[in-house]
């Protein structure tokens, strides 16, 4: 039984509602005694890097006319790192954003970006709580990884 169950992966109702997907579980599987904080390190890296990306995207969205190519490039990066940690909801927003870019839909981009930031903030909070919990739980609990 994964600790994450009920937290992210399976939370929500329906397939698209989880905050995290299987990729995150894979990260946990890569965490071992030699790399006890691997997941947290990766997540920290992700949030640090994505904060910069979000900033860049916001700036790009402020410029008119919108440079969709540029936006798409940024979002491609964002999506790449989001998917690499299994940030499912964020990734889905990225996908949507890029679709709007492709369509040249500036409104859609802006709207999606707001949603993306919301999901991003939620995930961040959830993960912070999760790692805090994991630390409190200690090694025993940590050992019980989702399969």
């Amino acid at each position, binding site marked *: 039984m994964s600790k994450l169950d009920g937290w992210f992966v399976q939370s929500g109702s329906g397939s698209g509602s989880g905050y995290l997907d299987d*990729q995150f579980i*894979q*990260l946990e*599987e*890569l965490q071992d005694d*030699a*790399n006890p904080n*691997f997941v947290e*390190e*990766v997540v920290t*890296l*992700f949030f640090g*890097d994505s904060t910069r990306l979000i900033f860049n995207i916001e700036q790009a969205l402020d410029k008119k006319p919108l440079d969709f190519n540029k936006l798409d*490039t940024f979002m*491609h*990066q964002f*999506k*790449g*790192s989001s*998917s*690499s*940690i*299994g940030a499912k909801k964020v990734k889905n927003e990225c996908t949507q954003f890029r679709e709007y870019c492709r369509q040249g839909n500036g409104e859609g981009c802006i709207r999606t970006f707001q949603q993306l930031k919301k999901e991003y903030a939620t995930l961040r909070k959830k993960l912070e709580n999760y790692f805090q919990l994991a630390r409190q739980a200690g090694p025993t609990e940590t050992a019980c990884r989702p399969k």
Partner: protein
Amino acid sequence: MMNMDKGGGGGGGTLSMASSGEGVSGQFPAGLRVLVVDDDLTCLKILERMLHHCLYEVTTCSQAVVALSILREKKYMFDLVLSDVHMPDMDGFKLLEHIGLEMDLPVIMMSMDDKKEVVMKGVTHGACDYLIKPIRMEAIKNIWQHVVRKRRNELKELEQSGSVEDGERIRKPSDDADNASSANEGSWKNSKKRKEEEDEEDRDDSSTLKKQRVVWSVELHQQFVAAVNQLSIDKAVPKKILELMNVPGLTRENVASHLQKYRLYLKRLSGGPQTGLNTPFMGTSDANFGPMSSFDGFNLQSLTVPGQLPPQSLATLQAGGLARVTAHGGMNMQIADQRNLFSAETPRLRFGVGPQLSNNNQVNLLRGLPSSMEQKQLTHLHQPVQSFGNTSLQSFGNTGLQVSEGSSRYVKLPMGSLGTGSSARVDPVHRNESNALMMQMAQSQLRGQLFSNEIAGRVLGGNGAVTNGRGAVQNPVSQASPMADFSMKRVTDLTGHGFPLGSSAGVPSLQSAGTFQDGGSSGVKGPRGFNPSYDIFNELQQNKTPDWDLQSVGLTFDTSRNTNPAQCNIDPSLSGLGQQGFLSSQKNREREEQHGNPEISQCHENLRVENDFRVKTESLPELNSDNFVYTRHWGQDDLMSALLKQQQDGIGPVETELNFDGYSMDNISA
């Protein structure tokens, strides 16, 4: 920026492939040296972890441009490249293209972009695989297969191509020999020969010594491709392409060389022809092949063609050359520029010792060099040559190779020819006769033998030949490494003589040689070589594994670079054929000075073969220079490589220049 991490556990790098073809020994995937390029730091970290989890040795790089420079410097240090497609500084496909043309490493592209066009682009650009992000462990676990597959294909290509040139036959035998030895040693890495094509090119171009080095920029390459397409690949001949391209300064030879590479590249893309030659040793064969080809026909010229030989091939050459040389009794020096092969690469001088087909012929290694080599390099060559003169090889049981760079430095590498007793001693003076550029080759007495038995041939060649060949190989600073290689190979070969093929360490040495070269190029060998994955040394280390132990040959290798032009004498005395004595562990100590001046740093390498071979390093007072980047010990057959000493003396500005040309310390990532 890049991080070098040693692969976790798993015997640290013992890559051993079963001697039987695709058979891969249990540890094989472990130690696979992978370069990961991704601008996404999160992905990079995850990939690094995943690769480590598979016990691969990982080098990460967040910029394509940096990755390319790393590869140009240390292409031998990697087995596989994993690259992102979308990167800000350089498109992943462009990187892929460069790698395909310059180092011919298997490249796996990765991207979140799964559109058919993009994936197809990866295929057409030569990617061996395309992974959709997010990357899963399941995919990472199996990437090693691309390394194996590529080697297999290359082997097949070689065999096919073999018929083309006389040398081919030789190649094969040698390959086999190498394989055998390598098999024992389990030096899977040794076999990395990536560029036979280049060798072939070299041969073709060997006649044109004056070939000018051309940097095949993307633009130039595109012009080239356009011309080829216009003519159609089948009908494209260098002359016509040259006319179409209409680029001033470009010569037919440049185009011919590039065309050959390009054809091979296309061939790879199309899967290449596969011949039935399945040598059991995939890995080893590769390395061997490269050299072999160059040696084929034992054309000194071909050997001499500096630029043409790829680094790998150099290694091979060395190995092959050694063997052959020994066979001949004479040693040939080859200087090859890898750079020529690769447009972008830093100039490297390679030393090859090639046996000459013609007996007693003197071969001018140098002459070939100039064309391929830059002026600076040339100068180096000259110096080396001179140094050669200085070097005296002692033959009899021991063959000593001395490599001296400039008068100030010289390294003597005595190679003991195990069985041979041919104590041909060559007077250094003798060698001097040859033009500075010219190297004299010892007669090839044994060559015939070489042919007869692939393995045996080499071994046989080893006899006496070494002694005769006392020619010192010198690499100017940059090439210092190559020299090391040389000795290594030679040693191997020698051992081979006395020893059963299996016992002979020669094969392993090949790889090591390559490593050395790399190191040489960087100016600081130690660092490179010792870098986790790719250095020959590393390989050696890996080799340390049981397989190597089997090989009795142990070399103690101290490579130290002294600021002083200290001289290193390596006197390996081979006492017995028994080679088994080689248990001696090899120690490599490389001290690198990452001083701004490569010149300053010198490297001494002492190889000791405990048993019979002893490499003595004489004057290395300075070895303990501050700049010790790296010290390693390994016992391998490759000890031979240890023989290769690299002394880089900062003595002469000229030398320095030569040595370090193209290799700026800055480039060296330590």
